[in-house]
């Protein structure tokens, strides 16, 4: 009898020993499977997109962006531009404390902006228009701009808006130990940098009472591992890179939470025809647009997960025009006619740089569609580590690429303005300049009208040959709900809740 009891007790103990970790997971915890980790918890080094939730856990921003894109108070309870749009006054909360015990005030905002500008982080360009930041009083900050910046308030909801304790900014410890006022604190004892980050909710947080007591980020760069973790219940949510993985997740009973934030397609850098005269001819660029059967590509290679489009503006932007999605309906005959009109009836050659992250089948199909109208597109393989540098080298007339769809003013500064990051040949256009100025300085109604007019012009001039906007393959399990965040690759941490 004693021996049997001993055996039963031993077996029970062994079961509990193995099951203990599972049993311990009953607390209110959200586990997010992610592909990236933060480079540093210094907010000046914050990268946006999928890294943003890490920073949101421990820092507050000056302004909060709601899931639908509207702005709400956060560390700034109110804000107002003057009539020149060059002076922005922020009224700050006076009841916020950092984790180092210091009280948040205007000096922290001033110090954060100065640090952000000096630190050469990934988002330093978002404060390029800032001339000076002054603490008018402990609860009032004046930000003076060099020129009107219609996207500036959006920047304050993101990397540029994260405020750390000014006492912590000079210390290297900020790299691994955040000192913010956010809803959670980083639990260093349960964190393995680069692998697993554990955040615990603050009891005395001044702001919204978020539903989870703990948030974990599990860094799972391998897509198979991420899918397995979600399917087996180890994580509650994850984003996958391919429609095929999304399809597999859906068949496993997981819930897709769709949002379109990226577009895939061709970008024409050489609009003046400096490298390749053909690319400088609008008729050739339009012909390329007509040659592409976008819907077929979307159905075949993205499993229909997205929207075929001829515009690079996103649906949440002021400049989005619904009918421009079908501006270039598939018409190979028209493509050939345009090429003939441009003097390329016998065909032409194009070189398109590509890299490993692009789907080979899509590229082959695009190449075939172009060949069908007489365009011989040769792909030039470039290693991923060199790809962006090669695109900006001035050696490429065009490229295949995936791009994020930002707000209108960000789009202009990333793609259209002569100084834009992706205007590689610094191509200047009077119509673009005039409409950009209206967007920069106009009232909201005029701004929207100007953005839509600009969009129409860019589509007509075929500066791009977009294929489609793709659905981000964001999935949750049956215990979790999430609202997608507009113009953001990953949902904000505020948007998650347990499913009741």
């Amino acid at each position, binding site marked *: 009898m004693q021996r049997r009891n001993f055996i039963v007790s031993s077996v029970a103990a062994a079961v509990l020993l193995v099951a203990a970790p599972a049993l311990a997971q009953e607390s209110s915890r959200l586990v997010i499977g992610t592909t990236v980790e933060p480079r540093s918890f210094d907010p000046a080094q914050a990268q946006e997109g999928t890294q943003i939730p890490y920073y949101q856990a421990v820092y507050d921003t000056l302004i909060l962006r709601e899931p639908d894109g509207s702005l709400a108070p956060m560390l700034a309870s109110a804000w107002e531009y003057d009539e020149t749009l060059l002076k922005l006054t922020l009224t700050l909360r006076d009841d916020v404390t950092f984790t180092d015990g210091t009280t948040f005030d205007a000096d922290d905002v001033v110090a954060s902006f100065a640090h952000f500008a000096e630190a050469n982080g990934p988002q330093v360009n978002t404060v390029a228009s800032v001339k000076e930041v002054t603490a008018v009083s402990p609860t009032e900050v004046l930000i003076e701009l060099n020129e009107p910046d219609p996207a500036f308030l959006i920047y304050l909801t993101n990397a540029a808006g994260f405020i750390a304790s000014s006492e912590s900014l000079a210390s290297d410890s900020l790299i691994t130990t955040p000192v913010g006022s956010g809803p959670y604190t980083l639990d260093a004892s349960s964190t393995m940098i680069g692998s697993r980050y554990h955040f615990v909710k603050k009891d005395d947080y001044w702001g919204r009472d978020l539903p989870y007591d703990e948030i974990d980020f599990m860094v799972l760069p391998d897509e198979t591992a991420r899918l397995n973790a979600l399917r087996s219940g180890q994580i509650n949510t994850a984003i996958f890179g391919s429609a095929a993985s999304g399809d597999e997740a859906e068949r496993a009973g997981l819930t897709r939470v769709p949002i379109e934030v990226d577009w895939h397609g061709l970008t024409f850098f050489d609009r003046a025809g400096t490298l390749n005269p053909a690319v400088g001819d609008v008729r050739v660029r339009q012909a390329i647009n007509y040659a592409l059967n976008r819907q077929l590509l979307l159905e075949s290679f993205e499993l229909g997960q997205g929207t075929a489009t001829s515009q690079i503006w996103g649906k949440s932007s002021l400049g989005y025009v619904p009918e421009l999605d079908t501006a270039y309906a598939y018409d190979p005959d028209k493509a050939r006619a345009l090429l003939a009109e441009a003097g390329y009836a016998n065909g032409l050659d194009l070189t398109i740089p590509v890299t490993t992250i692009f789907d080979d089948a899509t590229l082959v199909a695009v190449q075939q569609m172009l060949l069908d109208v007489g365009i011989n597109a040769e792909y030039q393989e470039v290693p991923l580590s*060199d790809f962006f540098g090669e695109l900006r080298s001035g050696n490429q007339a065009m490229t295949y690429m995936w791009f994020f769809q930002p707000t209108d003013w960000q789009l202009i500064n990333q793609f259209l303005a002569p100084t834009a990051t992706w205007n590689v040949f610094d191509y200047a256009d009077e119509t673009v300049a005039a409409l950009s100025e209206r967007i920069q300085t106009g009232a909201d109604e005029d701004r929207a009208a100007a953005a839509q007019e600009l969009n129409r012009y860019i589509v007509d001039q075929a500066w791009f040959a977009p294929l489609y906007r793709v659905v981000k393959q964001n999935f949750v399990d049956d215990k979790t709900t999430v609202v997608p965040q507009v113009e953001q690759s990953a949902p904000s941490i505020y948007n998650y809740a347990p499913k009741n």
Partner: protein
Amino acid sequence: MIAFLARRLLSSIVLVIAVSFVGFVLLALASGDTAQNMLGQNATQEQIDAKNVELGLDQSIPVRYGLWLASAARGDFGRSWFTGENVIQSLASRLPVTLSLVAGVMVFAALIAFTLGSVAAIRRGKIDRFVQIFSAMGFGMPGFLVALLLVTLFSIQLGWFPATGYVEPQVSLGGWLSTIALPIIALSVNTIAGVTQQVRSAVAETLQKDFVRTLRSRGLPERTIIVKHVLRNAATPALTVLALQFVGLLGGSVVVESIFALPGLGSMAIRYTERGDVPVIMGLIVLTVIIVVVVNLLVDLAIGWLNPKARVE
């Protein structure tokens, strides 16, 4: 013995410098645009240039290596460019994961291989043929394929083991076992196959030796002959193979750690090399050389203990 150890230490230092230099040059040539990778696709050329200066990438390769070597000699391997973590701390947190995986494989594989190989050599016949077929199959099964099969069956479908992640043994012994079991099995298959064959051949050869006949003629029990004499003599070549396997396991752990999301040195190697995180990769190179040197030394000492003829005077 002291002279032997001193010679080993000196040659190890030379080896570390040589391997680190070659590694540094290869990294420098193959890393691509690290600054661009850190800053993202929308970074301007001014930002990239400033980042290159900050990281020292505007200097020549020999200068950069010299600075790294001087710093490393003082024990300062810097910080990761992509996580900000101190390199030594980063390696120290991941080393136990890989060591527990590789050591687990070595122990598990040695137990299985010695058992199977010995039984095959002693019993012969059908058992021997089964073991040889099993070994051949094991050779042909890539570790990543075994890993995927195991995770699909035991984690996803049956839910007996976690699909990903790692629990430190000091946090939960049961959790650690549950997270390390499938990776160990996946990584053991090739090793078992190789070592089994080696043990089988060595035991079979040793059984034919005159001293075994002599021991039998003296009336020693067969079990004593096998355990105390035959296996001891056959162990040397098997241990040598195991030592070689250890180096291969360090490389093989890369894929298995990625599939199971184990935060070890293998998954670190892939991820940080892709990004061009030079400080971490250099630290990893030095650590790997040290591990290989130490393991080879331990194996040599073990062989010397087992076989007095192999001892260095």
